[in-house]
C-alpha cells in the first residue's frame, strides 16, 4: 500500500505541536524553579552544605582566696552524631552504640540502652544536619575504636570540648554547685541572653549565682560539608570567648579541714550516737566567716559528693541516691536547725537591753525553775549574766525569759539576723524562723490550748528551743556580729570576678547590712560569757585545751523533740578573743551534745584557720623577701638573722616556711595571679641569694615580687632565678644585684 504523505505530514504537524507544547511546559517549570523560586532553593542548597559548628567556650574557673583552683575545665572527647537521613543511619547508630558500650563515660549501659538513648536524642533534636551530642568524656580507647571504623560511621563526629573538672572532688561541692546542659525552661527564661540548646548552665550554688560571669561565649566554625557530613573546607572561624573566673573568699585548707571534721562528726553520730532508724540521712553543717568582712572562709554541708559525677552522663539511680541522702542540698544555708543554747547570747542581749536584768543581777540556781529542769541536776549555784552564758544556765534563762516574753527576745534575735535571710550570694537560702506567738498560733491552728503562747513557751524560746530554727550561716553571722562589736555584714563567697586576660572585672567589697542596736556594754558581757565558756570549767572549754589562740564560744544541745530524745550538737565560736578575726558555727544533726562533738569540730576548724594564717604570713614575709634579700646580702654570707630579722624569712634558712612553700607548689602547680611567684623555696643552702623564686613554672617566675634565686650551689652569687629557656644576659655580680631575676 502506498504511503499517504499528506496524512503523515498532518499527523507529524500535530506531533510537532504537542512536542513544542510539552517542551514549553518543561521550560516554564524550569524557569519558575530557577528564576522565581531560585532564592528559596539557594537557601536550601546552602543549608545542605554549610554548617555552623559551635565551638564550646570554656567556662570561667573558680579559685580560692589564695589562687588555688577549685573548679577548672578539662578537655575531653565528645562523640556527636549528625543525622543524615541516609538509609543506613540505623546501622550507624547500631554500630556506634556497640562501640560506646563499655566506655567509662557510659558505664553499665548496654548497647541496646545506648542505642535507644541516641535515637531519643535524635528525635528530640528537630533540626536536621546539626550534630547531637551522644557521649561526653569518652576514653581515648573508644575514640580509637571509632576512628578505626570511620568509613562505616557517616555523620559521627569526635570533638574535644571543655567540661568541668573538680581537682578536689567533693571539696565545697554544694557551694560550688554543678553545671548541666541548659534545660528547655531555662532556655526559655534566658532567651534574650543568647543561650542555645546544648549550652552549659549553672544549676546550683555559685555556678548558678554567677552564671552570667562564668559562662563563656561560644565560638563557631563555618564549614562546608559533603552529603555524609564530612567537612570539606573551612569558611570562617569565630573564636570562643572564655568565661570570667571567680576568686572566692574560700580558703581551701580551712575548707578541707572543716569538711573533714564535720564529716568525721557525722560519721561518729551515725555510728551510735544518733538514735534514728538506719538509713535516715544525718546531716551536718559548718560555716567559717571573717568577722570583719563577712567573707566566708569555709562552708560545709555534709553529706557531700564528688562533683565530677556531673561531668559525665548522670545515671538516675545515682542522682536519686544523692538526693535521698540530702547530698544535693546545701545544709549550711538551706536547712534551719534548732539552735539550742547557742541562742542564749541573743536571749541575754534581749534581757540586758530590755532591762529585764542588769549585769549584776544574780539568781540562786537550784537546778530547776518552776516546772522546768536545768540541764545540770542540782543547778549552778549563784549565777549572773556572764555565768549564765558560761554555764549555759537554763534556770537563769527560764526565769528571766518568761519575764521578758517572746516579743523582746524575738526582737533581738532578729536584730542579730537570726531567722532572716543573710543575703549570701547563693541560691535557695532558707530563712528559718524565730519563735513567736503568731507562729505558734499558725502551727497549732485549731487547737485552742496549744495555739496559745504559754509561759513555758517563753522559757523554751529563751534557751533556743520552741520554733527557733536557724541556718548555720545565720549562726556564724550572728556570732560574727557579737565578735566585731555589732556589725552585720552580708556573708559572701566571691571576692572578685577576673576576666580571661587577668583584669579585675568586678570586686565585691564588704557590705554592711546594718549595725545592731545593742550597746557596747551588753556585747562586752556577752563576749565575756562566751570567753568563759571556752576557758577554765566553761561548758565548751574541753575542746580548746591547749589551743595556741584564745577563743570565745558557746555550745548548744538542741532537743529534736522526737521520742528517741535525740538532740543536735551545735557549737559556735570566734577567735582570737581580743581581736576577733573569724567566727565559726558547727551543727551536727543528732550529734547529741555540742560540747562533745561540736567542740572538737570547731577546734579542728580553728586550728586549720590559724595554721593557714601562719603559712600565709610566712609567704607574705617571703613575698617581701627580694628587698630584704638585697638588703641582707652583704651581711648574708652565713650570718642569717644577725642584723635584720627579716633575713631569716627572706634569704632562706627558714625551713618550716620553706617546706610550706614547697607544699604550696605541689598543690597549685599552675597557679597564677594572687600568689604568683610568691611562695619561695626557703631553705636553699645559699643564704644571701636574693629572695626566692619559683622556677617550677616558667611564667610565674617572672611575675610577682619573689624573684631571685634558687640557684644551684655551684654558682653562688648569681642572683635571680633563671626562667627556663632564658639566660641572663649579664651575670649579676655579687649580692647587690641578686634580687630581681632577668625576667622582671
Amino acid at each position, binding site marked *: *500500500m502506498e*504511503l*499517504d*504523505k499528506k*496524512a*503523515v*505530514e498532518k*499527523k*507529524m504537524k500535530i*506531533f*510537532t505541536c504537542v*512536542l*513544542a507544547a*510539552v*517542551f514549553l511546559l*518543561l*521550560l516554564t*517549570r*524550569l*524557569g519558575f*524553579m*530557577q*528564576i522565581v*523560586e*531560585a532564592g*528559596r*532553593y*539557594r537557601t*536550601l*542548597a*546552602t543549608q*545542605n*552544605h554549610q554548617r555552623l559548628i559551635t565551638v564550646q567556650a570554656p567556662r570561667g574557673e573558680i579559685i580560692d582566696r589564695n589562687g588555688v583552683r577549685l573548679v577548672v575545665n578539662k578537655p575531653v572527647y565528645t562523640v556527636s552524631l549528625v543525622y*543524615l*537521613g*541516609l*538509609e543506613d543511619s540505623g546501622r550507624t547508630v547500631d554500630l556506634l552504640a556497640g562501640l560506646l558500650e563499655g566506655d567509662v563515660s557510659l558505664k553499665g549501659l548496654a548497647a541496646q540502652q545506648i542505642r535507644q538513648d541516641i535515637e531519643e536524642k535524635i528525635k528530640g533534636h528537630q533540626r*536536621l544536619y546539626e550534630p547531637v551530642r551522644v557521649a561526653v568524656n569518652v576514653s581515648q580507647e573508644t575514640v580509637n575504636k571509632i576512628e578505626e571504623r570511620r568509613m562505616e560511621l557517616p555523620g559521627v563526629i569526635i570533638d574535644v570540648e571543655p567540661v568541668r573538672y573538680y581537682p578536689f572532688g567533693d571539696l565545697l561541692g554544694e557551694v560550688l554547685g554543678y553545671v548541666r546542659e541548659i534545660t528547655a525552661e531555662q532556655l526559655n527564661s534566658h532567651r534574650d541572653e543568647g543561650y542555645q540548646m546544648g549550652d552549659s548552665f549553672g544549676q546550683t550554688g555559685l555556678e548558678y549565682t554567677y552564671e552570667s560571669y562564668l559562662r563563656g561565649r561560644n565560638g563557631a566554625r563555618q564549614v*562546608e*560539608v*559533603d*552529603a*555524609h557530613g*564530612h567537612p*570539606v*573546607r*573551612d569558611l570562617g572561624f569565630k573564636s570562643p570567648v572564655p568565661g570570667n573566673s571567680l576568686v572566692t573568699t574560700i580558703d581551701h585548707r580551712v575548707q578541707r579541714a572543716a569538711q573533714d571534721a564535720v564529716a568525721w562528726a557525722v560519721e561518729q553520730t551515725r555510728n551510735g550516737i544518733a538514735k534514728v532508724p538506719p538509713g535516715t540521712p544525718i546531716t551536718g553543717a559548718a560555716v567559717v566567716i571573717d568577722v570583719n568582712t563577712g567573707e566566708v572562709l569555709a562552708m560545709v554541708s555534709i553529706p557531700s559528693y564528688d562533683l565530677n559525677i556531673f561531668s559525665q552522663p548522670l545515671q538516675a539511680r545515682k542522682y536519686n541516691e544523692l538526693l535521698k541522702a540530702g547530698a544535693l542540698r546545701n545544709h549550711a544555708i538551706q536547712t534551719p536547725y534548732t539552735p539550742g543554747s547557742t541562742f542564749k547570747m541573743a536571749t541575754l542581749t534581749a534581757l540586758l537591753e530590755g532591762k529585764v536584768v542588769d549585769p549584776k543581777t544574780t539568781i540562786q540556781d537550784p537546778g530547776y525553775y518552776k516546772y522546768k529542769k536545768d540541764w545540770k541536776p542540782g543547778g549552778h549555784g549563784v549565777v549572773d549574766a556572764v555565768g549564765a552564758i558560761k554555764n549555759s544556765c537554763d534556770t537563769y534563762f527560764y526565769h528571766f525569759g518568761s519575764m521578758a516574753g517572746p516579743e523582746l527576745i524575738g526582737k533581738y534575735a532578729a536584730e542579730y539576723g537570726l531567722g532572716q535571710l543573710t543575703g549570701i550570694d547563693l541560691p535557695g537560702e532558707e530563712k528559718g524562723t524565730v519563735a513567736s506567738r503568731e507562729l505558734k498560733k499558725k502551727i497549732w491552728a485549731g487547737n485552742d490550748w496549744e495555739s496559745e503562747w504559754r509561759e513555758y513557751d517563753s522559757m523554751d524560746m529563751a534557751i533556743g528551743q520552741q520554733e527557733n530554727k536557724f541556718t548555720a550561716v545565720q549562726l556564724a553571722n550572728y556570732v560574727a556580729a557579737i565578735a566585731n562589736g555589732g556589725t552585720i555584714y552580708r556573708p559572701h563567697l566571691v571576692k572578685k570576678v577576673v576576666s580571661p586576660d587577668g583584669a579585675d572585672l568586678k570586686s565585691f567589697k564588704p557590705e554592711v547590712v546594718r549595725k545592731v542596736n545593742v550597746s557596747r556594754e551588753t556585747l562586752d558581757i556577752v563576749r565575756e560569757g562566751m570567753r568563759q565558756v571556752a576557758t577554765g570549767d566553761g561548758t565548751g572549754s574541753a575542746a580548746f585545751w591547749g589551743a595556741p589562740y584564745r577563743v570565745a564560744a558557746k555550745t548548744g544541745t538542741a532537743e529534736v523533740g522526737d521520742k528517741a530524745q535525740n538532740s543536735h550538737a551545735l557549737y559556735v565560736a570566734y577567735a582570737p578573743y581580743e581581736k576577733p578575726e573569724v567566727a565559726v558555727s558547727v551543727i551536727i544533726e543528732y550529734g547529741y551534745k555540742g560540747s562533745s562533738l561540736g567542740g572538737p569540730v570547731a577546734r579542728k576548724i580553728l586550728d586549720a584557720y590559724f595554721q593557714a594564717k601562719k603559712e600565709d604570713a610566712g609567704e607574705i614575709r617571703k613575698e617581701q623577701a627580694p628587698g630584704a634579700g638585697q638588703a641582707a646580702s652583704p651581711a648574708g654570707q652565713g650570718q642569717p638573722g644577725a642584723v635584720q630579722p627579716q633575713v631569716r624569712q627572706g634569704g632562706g634558712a627558714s625551713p618550716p616556711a620553706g617546706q610550706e612553700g614547697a607544699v604550696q607548689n605541689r598543690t597549685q602547680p599552675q597557679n597564677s595571679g594572687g600568689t604568683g611567684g610568691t611562695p619561695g623555696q626557703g631553705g636553699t643552702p645559699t643564704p644571701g641569694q636574693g629572695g626566692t623564686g619559683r622556677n617550677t613554672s616558667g611564667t610565674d617566675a617572672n611575675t610577682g615580687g619573689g624573684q631571685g634565686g634558687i640557684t644551684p650551689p655551684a654558682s653562688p652569687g648569681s642572683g635571680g632565678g633563671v626562667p627556663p629557656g632564658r639566660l641572663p644576659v649579664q651575670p649579676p655580680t655579687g649580692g647587690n644585684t641578686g634580687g630581681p631575676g632577668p625576667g622582671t
Partner: protein
Amino acid sequence: MYRRVIKNLDYPLLGTTALLLLFSLITIGSATLEFTDSSIEQIQGMNFFLRLLHMDYYFVVRQVAWIFLGLIVAAVLIYIDYEDLAKYSRHLYLINLAMLTAVIFLGTSALGAQRWIYIGPFSFQPSEFSKLIIIITFADFLAKRQGRLNSLRELIPCFVYVGIPVLLILKQPDLGTSLVFIAMMFGMLFAAGARPAILAGIIALGLVMSFSVYEIHGYLHNSDVRMMEKIAQVSKAAGGNDISLINNGELRREIEKKGYSLNAGDLNEYLDLLKKEHQRVRSRHEAFHKFTLQEYQMTRLTIFMNPESDLLGAGYHVWQSRIAIGSGGLTGKGLLKGTQSHYTFLPIRHTDFIFSVVGEEFGFVGVTALLFLFYILLYRGVRIVVMARDTYGMLLAAGIVSMFAFHIIVNIGMTAGVMPVTGIPLALFSYGGSNMIMNLAALGLLLNVYVRRQKLIF
C-alpha cells in the same frame, strides 16, 4: 554509494548530535568530580577552559569509547538498506525475546532490578537494545497491517506483539523501560494511521487504571500499616504498659466496643484476633504486589504525588535534584562549582540525574540551550518521518522519534519533579554504554531512512 551516503546525510541533525555529545561529556566530567578537601578553592579563580582541565575524566574517557562504538554501529546501520532489516524482523523478534528471557535467568541485579548481562568483562543492558529491535520489528508488523488499524479488535494483535517483551521487561522489573515501549508503540500506531480517538481512549483508560491501582494500593498498604501499629500498641498494653492505650482513646473505645476489657488476659485474646486479621490484610497486600507493581514502585508514585512527604527517605533524590536545579538560578553556579553535585548531595548524577547538574552549573540559560538542542534533534527526526519514502521507513523513524521524545521528556520531568521517578536516562546525555550505543544506532537508522528518502537515488 559511499559518497552518496555522505552527501545525503542530515547535517543539521548530525551537528546537533555532536553538540549534545560535547555538552554531555563536559557535564559528565563535572558531575563525577567530588570534593573531599579544600581543592574547590583552586577552582574559584579559574576560567572556564582551565576548569575543563580539572574535571574528572574517568567516566568521560569511557563515554568517548562508547560513543565511538556507537558511531561504528550507526555507520553500519546507515550502510545497510533499512528495507533489508524488515526481512529479518521475525528472527530479530525471537532473538529479542530470548535476550530478555536470558536477563531474567542470567542477569545481575543492581538497585533492585536485574538489568545487566555480563559477557566477559563487559556488561550490557539487553532492554536498551530491545528498544531498537522492537522499533525495527514492530514497524514491519505495522507496515503489513496498514489500513487495518481502525478498530480495537484490529489493534489487539499489535498490543500482544509489543506486550510480550514488555511483560518480560516488567519481570526484571523495569517499569521505566516498559513505559518507553508503550510510548513507542503508541507513537508508531499513531503514525501508522490507527484512529487517534481509540488511542486516546486507551491512554485515558491506562491512566485511570494506574490511578485506581495507586488508590487501591494506598488502601491496602495503609490498612496493613495501621494494623501493625494497633498490634504494637495492644501488645505493649498487654505487657503492662496501659498508658499506650489510654493515650489512644480511639483504640480503647474500639476494644471496649468489641466487648473486651483492658485487663491483660482479654488484651492477649484481642491481640490474637488482631494478628489473625493482620495476616489476612497482609496477604491481600502481598497479593496485590505480586500481580501489579512492587512496593518500591508504589513508593515512587507516592513520592511523586506527594513529594515532600519523605524528604530524607524515598523523596530524597527528587528533592535534592530540585534543589540543584532551582539553586542554579538564571546563569548557574558555573562549571565545577555546583555544591549539590560536588558535595555529593545529588545522587546518581552522571546517569539518571545528569540534567540536574546542567541545571545547577549552567542555570536556566544552560537548560534552555539543552532543551533547544533536543528540540532541534526531534524536529529533524519528525522531518525524516515525513520524508520517508515508504511506510516501513516512516514507521521506523516515528518509533525512533517517539523513543527519543519520551526519554527526554520523562527524564527532564523527573529531575524537575513533575514526573515520577522511573529510572529513564537522558538520551544521548546520561553516562552509560548500552544506552549510548543504542541511541547512536537509532540515529544511524534514522539517517538511513533519510538517506534513502528518494527511491531513485540508489
